């Protein structure tokens, strides 16, 4: 409510001393002013109401590129809501080899505590008990799962051959391992079942639990009951893990060492979609709050120092508040929700909206109409808008929201500055006089700036050459580069995932069908083709859900191949006659076969509560009107052979999650590049129209071009290849810089006015620079990249504007 208080405060002294003869026009003006403020309050309330009833979302998918294809879109929603998104990967890292056993013990205790916690659906740590559960399920179903089960295997000849193999095996070093199950499984069907998974990467095991490949980090896998993007419940699950870890650590180190060196030797690492959602939400919220407050404080301090007017500061809040409210309302109306990242980006509006207040206050002349000022202001708004419109044209959902927010924000801020501030600021002391002493250094610097003209141009040409001849690629279209997740989070995820032998989900074959049974038939039918690809080395391996859940027909066929108990017993007696084997000892074998004959075909629920069940839940997705079976591929050498092998099969799609997404990012970037070029042309055209003089336009264009080229070259040299976000930020640099170039480039004959222009541009650049530099401190990559680029660009723009764009007459 400060702006309104300011309004009455500002208005009262102005109205009182007015002489009586002008009363009618005074009254009209007074009514007009009061009306504008009333409309403003109404609009502000309206915007505030809209923004207030809109939810703030932190779902990071909005700032990830959308799925490239329809199939991916389907998959993305399934993965987002599915089991994969509920995974928490827990690592207990030992600092030294001495602590590895302790890490294993802590991991085991932690897993035990989490397994007893109702927040988790499944906890696995690779302990013998957990693995034994999986082995038992596979063993019990071996006659349904083994591809070697055929009617021929159970004839007298078939049995005789199998027992001859068994005798050989019992004379090998593997004898103790084979003997353990030989009475139940003399034909080694279990070995045949396991052989199907032999190419699956096996996690390392130490001290009875899973370890990462380097043998230092004990691994636990937990699956939450809550959905991955259910922020509140995910956060509760993470707190439970932290508590369980602290308790496990305390229990494991009790009495071992009274000092804290042992506890410090272990580190807890958490990864997974839910973990990252919670972490990035916390980071974004922290950034949005802390950085906005800091930006407001710093900019307020700057303005107070420069203008020595608390009342001006109060007035400057008007366009800021208007801009933020309008931006939020626009985003809320357009998207139905406001993203937390947009809130964070909102702090840049403080830097920009304050510009309009500065222009109005500092450049306001005795001329009541201020025609030149208003025209310059509208050009400034239009050029900035061009930048944000181009940002929206990229089509990238997150950027569209940021662009719309900023566009609505600056238009509202400019309107507020134009229609509310002049009347309210009229009685403020004319600052342009008082400034001259304090900004003498700035004036001297600006007077000298044109000397730097040629060195700057030379630097710009060099920078251009650097960009053109840069050996490494100019653009980085990897998802990791623009993902809202911190890079370290991705690396940790990769390490833990790799350690657990979980597929990285880059290459997938999706088999779509009207129902799950049909999808499994499709997946099963692909196996010969995939086996052939593996034999040729075109892929290292694959995981098909049909291996764990063969199609019903296959299971029935295997079951039908099994002879009845009496028949099998009779054949066994004949087959073992004259051998070293005792027929009676193999009664468990006959019983198991008979039991399998009475089993119903198994489905995915058979594996519930095991790691295998977890894998299957990811691979088998049902939704309204259809089902998908996903086959994960490992070590794909090239796309073409795989694509050829599966071509012309109905409902079968090869997905390259990484490549397809990178293609998509690249297409966003190309669109953004075109939009940026068009935007730049539009900005220069606007300037040409405004300036109306070719030479001046060229000077301004040169200043802008030099600033952009220098910024891009600096970024490339310091941070490496540029991303989509850098590109749109460069366009914002053009939008911001054009204002400075325009004001510097204006021919202002009056030295007093010229000095005022310089001071105002300096203050605007400083405010914008502060806001974006703070944004660069954000840990959210999109904010960090845009902030850093624009802050750097503002700096360069100010220098090039002062030297290259400055009017020859000055």
């Amino acid at each position, binding site marked *: 409510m400060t702006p309104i208080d300011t309004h009455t405060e500002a208005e009262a002294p102005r109205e009182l001393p007015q002489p009586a003869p002008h009363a009618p026009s005074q009254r009209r003006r007074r009514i007009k002013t009061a009306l504008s403020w009333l409309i403003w309050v109404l609009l502000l309330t309206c915007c505030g109401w809209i923004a207030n009833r809109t939810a703030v979302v932190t779902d990071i998918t909005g700032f990830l590129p959308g799925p490239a294809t329809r199939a991916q879109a389907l998959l993305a929603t399934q993965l987002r809501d599915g089991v994969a998104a509920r995974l928490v990967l827990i690592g207990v890292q030992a600092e030294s080899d001495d602590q590895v056993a302790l890490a294993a013990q802590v991991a085991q205790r932690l897993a035990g505590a989490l397994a007893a916690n109702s927040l988790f659906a499944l906890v696995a740590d690779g302990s013998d008990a957990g693995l034994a559960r999986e082995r038992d399920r596979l063993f019990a179903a071996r006659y349904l799962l083994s591809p070697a089960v055929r009617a021929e295997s159970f004839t007298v000849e078939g049995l005789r051959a199998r027992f001859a*193999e068994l*005798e050989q095996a019992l004379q090998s070093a593997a004898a*103790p391992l084979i*003997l*353990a199950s030989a*009475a139940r499984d003399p034909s080694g069907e279990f070995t045949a079942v396991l052989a199907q998974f032999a190419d699956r990467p096996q996690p*390392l095991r130490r001290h009875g639990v899973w370890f990462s490949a380097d043998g230092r980090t004990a691994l636990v896998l937990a699956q939450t009951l809550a959905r991955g993007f259910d922020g509140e419940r995910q956060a509760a699950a993470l707190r439970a893990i932290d508590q369980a870890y602290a308790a496990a650590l305390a229990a494991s180190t009790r009495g071992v060492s009274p000092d804290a060196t042992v506890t410090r030797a272990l580190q807890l690492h958490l990864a997974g979609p839910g973990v990252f959602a919670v972490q990035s939400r916390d980071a974004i919220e922290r950034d949005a709050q802390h950085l906005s407050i800091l930006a407001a404080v710093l900019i307020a301090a700057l303005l107070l120092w420069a203008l020595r007017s608390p009342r001006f500061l109060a007035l400057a809040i008007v366009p800021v508040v208007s801009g933020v409210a309008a931006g939020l309302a626009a985003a809320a109306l357009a998207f139905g929700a406001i993203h937390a990242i947009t809130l964070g980006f909102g702090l840049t509006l403080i830097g920009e909206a304050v510009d309009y207040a500065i222009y109005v206050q500092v450049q306001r002349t005795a001329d009541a109409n201020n025609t030149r000022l208003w025209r310059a202001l509208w050009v400034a708004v239009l050029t900035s808008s061009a930048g944000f419109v181009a940002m929206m044209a990229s089509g990238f959902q997150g950027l569209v929201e940021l662009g719309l927010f900023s566009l609505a924000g600056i238009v509202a801020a400019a309107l507020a500055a134009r229609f509310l501030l002049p009347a309210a600021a009229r009685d403020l002391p004319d600052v342009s006089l008082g400034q001259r002493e304090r900004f003498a250094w700035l004036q001297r610097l600006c007077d000298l700036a044109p000397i730097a003209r040629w060195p700057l141009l030379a630097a710009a040409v060099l920078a251009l050459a650097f960009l053109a001849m840069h050996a490494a690629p100019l653009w980085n279209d990897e998802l990791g580069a623009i993902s809202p997740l911190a890079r370290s989070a991705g690396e940790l995820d990769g390490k833990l995932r790799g350690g657990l032998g979980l597929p990285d989900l880059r290459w997938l074959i999706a088999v779509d069908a009207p129902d799950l049974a049909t999808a499994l038939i499709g997946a099963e039918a692909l196996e010969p083709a995939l086996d052939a690809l593996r034999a040729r080395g075109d892929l290292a391996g694959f995981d098909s859900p049909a291996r764990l859940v063969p199609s019903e027909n296959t299971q029935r066929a295997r079951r039908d191949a099994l002879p009845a108990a009496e028949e099998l017993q009779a054949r066994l007696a004949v087959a073992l006659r004259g051998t070293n*084997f005792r027929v009676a000892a193999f009664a468990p074998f006959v019983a198991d076969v008979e039991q399998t004959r009475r089993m119903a075909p198994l489905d995915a629920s058979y594996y519930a509560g095991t790691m295998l069940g977890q894998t299957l839940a990811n691979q088998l997705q049902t939704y309204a009107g259809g089902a998908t079976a996903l086959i994960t591929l490992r070590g794909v050498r090239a796309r073409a052979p795989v694509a050829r092998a599966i071509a012309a099969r109905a409902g079968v799609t090869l997905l390259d999650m990484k490549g397809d997404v990178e293609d998509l990012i690249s297409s966003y970037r190309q669109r953004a590049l075109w939009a940026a070029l068009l935007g730049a042309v539009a900005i220069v055209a606007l300037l040409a129209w405004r300036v109306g003089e070719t030479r001046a336009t060229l000077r301004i264009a040169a200043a802008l071009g030099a600033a952009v080229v220098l910024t891009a070259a600096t970024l490339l040299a310091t941070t490496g290849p540029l991303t989509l976000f850098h590109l749109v930020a460069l366009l914002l640099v053009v939008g911001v810089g054009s204002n400075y170039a325009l004001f510097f480039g204006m021919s202002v004959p009056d030295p007093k006015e010229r000095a005022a222009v310089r001071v105002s541009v300096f203050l605007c650049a400083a405010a914008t620079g502060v806001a974006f530099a703070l944004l660069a401190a954000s840990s959210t990559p999109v904010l960090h990249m845009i902030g850093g680029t624009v802050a750097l660009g503002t700096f360069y723009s100010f220098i090039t504007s002062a030297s290259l764009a400055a009017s020859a007459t000055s």
Partner: protein
Amino acid sequence: MNAHLARLFAVFSRHRARTVALVALAHVVLPGAHAQDPVQQLLDHLGARAERRASFVERQYSPLLNAPLEASGRLHFRAPDEVEKETLRPRHEWLRIRGDVLTIDTPPVRGAASTRSVRLSEQPVLSALIASLRATLAGDRATLQHYYEITLRGDAATRWTLTLTPIDPVLQAAIDRIEMRGRGDQVEQVMILSRAGDRSELSMTPVP
């Protein structure tokens, strides 16, 4: 034995591992006790030989079989942790254990790959089985005690029988006990008795 006694015995055996560890600790702390302990004496005696070569005959008894299956070949041990076992009859098979890695070369059985490597640290039962022979030959008491409770009949000077009983429940489910018989610093027979009633007897004759 009445029920009370049985329960008492169960409680005792649960604490047996700790008791054994305490006894071991006493030996480290008290060097005087060390010299008089016959197990330590035997293990020191065995560990003194850095290299051994032997021919072996291995008999596999099982309730599944009418008569034991027999295999024979050569054994080679090099301190501290290298064991090579080459089976010559009935089929050639070559097995080497070095440190944590077991490598096995077999004629293909049921289409399985002929050369395989296994990390012992990932195979608790296998590493316990291997430790029984390897750690005994190396005189490595700490490793033996990690897996087994040790009892000795006889002593290093004459004939002896070293009985290893698994401590860990996972091992107990597979192995009932391992008996090693020998004379002086020679191990003559290793007998592994499984819970399922299988018995494997490895008899060794030293080869110069």
